[in-house]
């Protein structure tokens, strides 16, 4: 199931808002999960699991540390869903 970048960003923003309370509008491609959105490592795992479910992709634990910004996550999900 391939999704376009905008759909992924919107979906990811909903997940981040649900878990952390950060307004969905603040979840932008250039934002760092830790520095800008103040998401700790535990909440990040929750975001990842939420994204896996929502977009039908697998995000291995080793990959999570490479997802510094929202844009990194959107790209990863886009590529992974294109392969799926």
């Amino acid at each position, binding site marked *: 199931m391939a999704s376009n970048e905008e759909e992924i960003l919107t979906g990811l923003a909903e997940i981040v808002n649900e*878990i*952390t*309370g950060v307004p969905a509008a603040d979840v932008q491609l250039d934002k760092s999960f830790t520095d800008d959105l103040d998401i700790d490592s*535990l909440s990040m*795992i*929750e975001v990842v*699991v939420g994204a*896996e479910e929502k977009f039908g992709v697998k995000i291995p634990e080793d990959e999570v540390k490479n997802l510094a910004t929202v844009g990194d996550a959107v790209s990863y999900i886009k590529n992974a869903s294109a392969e799926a």
Partner: protein
Amino acid sequence: MARSQVPVVVTGLGASTPLGGDVASTWDALLSGRSGVRHLTEEWVEQSPVRIGAPVAVDPSEVLPRVEARRLDRSAQIALIAARQAWADAGFEGKASETGVDPDRFGVVCASGIGGLHTLLGNYDQLLAHGPRKVSPLAIPMLMPNSPAANVGLALQARAGVHTPVSACSSGAEAIAYGLDMIRSGRADIVVAGGTEAVIHPLPIAAFANMMAMSKREGDPTAVSRPFDKDRDGFVLGEGGALFVLESAEHAEARGATVYAELAGAGITSDAHHIAQPEPDGAGVMAATRKALDDGGLRPSDINHINCHATSTPVGDAAEALALRKVFGEVIAGIPVTAPKSMIGHLLGGAGAVEALATVLTVHHGQIPPTINVDHLDEVIGLDVVRGEPRKLGDGPVAALNNAFGFGGHNVVLAFRKP
């Protein structure tokens, strides 16, 4: 008489109970004899051997922001709500360092009898249904028994130590005794202390029912919990908690704090008799009572009121009453007692704290709430049980005891005195 200690006073109160979402509504219901026991409506109730309970009157989700709530077990949610109320009641606002409290001289003691049960079992359900990936990364920090204490400490910025005594149904009272020790020993000037519990869930209900500890009485749920009544047949499970702000009298005086009561003393013993049954001759309870009196510099004749543990089990209520008659002798005839569990059910790790709250308010307001459902006072009890209307205390000095006992043979008695 051991009276060399630093006097410790209660300067703030907070609670979320089956009777109300705060202290005022809880106290009002206690005085009116209103029960918080009701039919449970969850889906699992259909198959449960017991279908009633006493959930908190105001659900924590109505009070806490959603994102904060989802990171906390229900027991910690209740503790945090009660702690913030107590903190504000004591005249504080925000974190310790923002409100003139030295964080290094401020501790938290918040007990739980069972811990984050909803989190543990909820995540186990997820594991079985969907596999390990669906287990929350927050599960451990949410389910650990020290989570309520740790979260209160985080929210209010306590650095003198955050503790969680676990002694089943006496946990909440033991936490208050521990807070007293922290201040007396010079480890803290202020301690937020109390207990919380939230285990209205089919597993503990089945387990307690299989122990024959819970009432299976049918009909009006508000008539089921009946401590000291001839027809009592077990306890009703409740949830909730209460937290106090305890302070050295010197610290409280220096900042002009309002004092509800002095926490005069505490007595703690263990039965070494049976894992779940009370000692039939009440020796452990008697020893704890004597220790509390001695610790508070009180004589039996100084006591004007006892808030009993009385859970509404046939054996437990009789054993507690016997122990009190033996400790106090003839004096007991002049000491009115009450059993809040008739209205709130049994809050396990929250019980000792919520009932200590009732005891403090009795000392403060001079009124003893009634015990409800004592239609036929069991003749083996032999105590002056307050029934019907609240009983007024006289104008003289007031001292009261609060009893809390737990599976494992734990006995905790707290002594409060009008300042």
